[in-house]
């Protein structure tokens, strides 16, 4: 079975974002970019499934600017077999377009399983996997914390409000990775060198024949409102009273 993993280039999780002075977006100049942590987990899961004999080939795909090839290389260094890079330059595509491009890749590659991160830590949309599943008419399991493959189905444990849910999906299916699915491995030096030689196909929406018009525009970006100091209360009685009667939170 072939596994397709979609990976996104995002700002590194340890970097603090800053809104541009003109409020047009956040300022990403000079900041470290990385593989989205949830995508890294998705790649790791694919590797583990291959190591368990459940998969034979792992293909990673990323859509983004030229530099997004670095993130494909990271996934290849972790152990994926080959990469597909869809060059969209600096345009930020809406998720639906991303999903349409991925759906085209799915159509061409015919993977048995598609793994994605549950969410990209930049735009925090948490939607691409679900959209892709709808476009392909595949079953979906989001927020996966455990993935088992048996025969032509996958049994996935999902993190839902207050607990866990288990679903069995007929393959091919879309699964999105949550934090507790696994702990990604460290990349080894020789594997980074090897990754440079693994195949990486480059294409574009035009070549793929996919229309990628945006319907959502970013009007402005603001820094979150700063919290301001409230009031000092004099006693526990006053505190309890305020929480009960003013804030109404207890």
């Amino acid at each position, binding site marked *: 079975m072939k596994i397709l993993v979609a990976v996104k280039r995002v700002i590194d999780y340890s970097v603090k*974002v800053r*809104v541009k002075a003109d409020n047009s977006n*956040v300022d990403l100049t000079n900041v470290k970019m990385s593989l989205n942590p949830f995508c890294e987990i998705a790649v790791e899961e694919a590797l583990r499934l291959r190591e368990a004999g459940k998969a034979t080939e792992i293909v990673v795909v990323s859509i983004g600017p030229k530099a997004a090839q670095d993130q494909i290389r990271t996934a290849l260094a972790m152990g994926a077999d080959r990469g597909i890079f869809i060059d969209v330059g600096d345009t930020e595509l*809406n*998720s*639906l377009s991303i999903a349409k491009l991925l759906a085209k890749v799915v159509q061409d590659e015919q993977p048995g399983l598609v793994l994605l991160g549950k969410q990209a830590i930049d*735009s*925090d*949309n*948490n*939607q691409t*996997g*679900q*959209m*892709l*599943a*709808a476009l392909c008419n*595949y*079953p*979906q399991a*989001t*927020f996966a914390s455990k993935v088992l493959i048996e025969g032509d189905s996958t049994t996935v444990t*999902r993190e*839902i*409000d*207050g*607990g*866990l*849910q*288990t*679903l069995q*999906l*007929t393959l091919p*299916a879309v699964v999105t990775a949550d934090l507790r699915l696994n702990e990604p491995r460290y990349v080894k030096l020789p594997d980074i060198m090897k990754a440079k030689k693994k195949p990486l196909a480059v294409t574009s929406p035009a070549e793929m024949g996919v229309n990628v018009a945006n*319907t*959502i*525009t*970013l*009007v*402005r*970006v*603001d*820094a*979150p409102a700063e*919290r*301001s*100091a*409230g*009031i*000092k*209360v004099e006693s*526990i*009685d006053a*505190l*309890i009273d*305020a*929480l009960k009667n003013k*804030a109404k*939170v*207890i």
Partner: protein
Amino acid sequence: MSNLVIAEHDNQNLKASTLNTITAASKIGGDIHVLVVGSNCQAVAQAAAAVAGVTKVHVADNEAYAHQLAENTAQLVAALAPAYSHLLAPATPAGKNLMPRVAALLDVNQLTDIMAVVSPDTFKRPIYAGNAIATVQSSDKIKVMSVRITAFDAAGAGGSAAIEAVNEVFTADKTKFIGEEVAKSDRPELTSAKIVVSGGRGVGSADNFKIIYTLADKLGAAVGASRAAVDAGFVPNDMQVGQTGKVVAPQLYIAVGISGAIQHLAGMKDSKVIVAINKDPEAPIFQVADYGLVADLFTAVPEMTGKL
């Protein structure tokens, strides 16, 4: 304009998150209808009909919807969608699982976690883990979105909407529900709790943390901690709130003996109400606290527990 709110429920009770979502719909304006998809879920429909502002409740009550799987629920919502300008669900795991799938079936985009309605086509939503707020405008014919529930008050009671059955049945042939395991813990989970009581280095020892637990139990709250408290071995590391710990946004966050370093604030500053109990009136935590009490925690916390 007309809004369809997808109810969140467990076939018996309407979850409060739906009430917040209804308020978001009321900010958009126009009719508000609620869709209840489930099995043996009439009680939920009745509860939804009683919410102020709701004018109609659709109930799709069928065994096929017992587990509200995204695959067939999305098809059902998409089938009803053309009558509406806006489709809304709470931005909970259930809503986030469903709405993007609905959007893709309708060939429109989706907006995740909206926290303010600027106009019927323009919304605010957090990006970069809440470190920036994007204002986004949608030109889609039908606007599909999930709603950050802490950003909107709960709608009140007082409605008497008509209840209408939806008879269309879609099945999810490729998905089988195997089971559900609701975590059974005496205390709510840190990241989803409505109230969090956190202790810091000021608490002094693992033993002293007992007073934090007792207060939390009285409030039905989860317990968190600062890194300094974790490093000192007062509590295990999965209780850490902050930049390198958990990010929480409860209705009420009570910080006890925590100075309020920016790395701690990064994990709780989106809480609705913040209370600080600290003996140092200059502690930075007071700069973000809605209610501050300058007091020794060893007297204040037991007193609070006793008076609740």
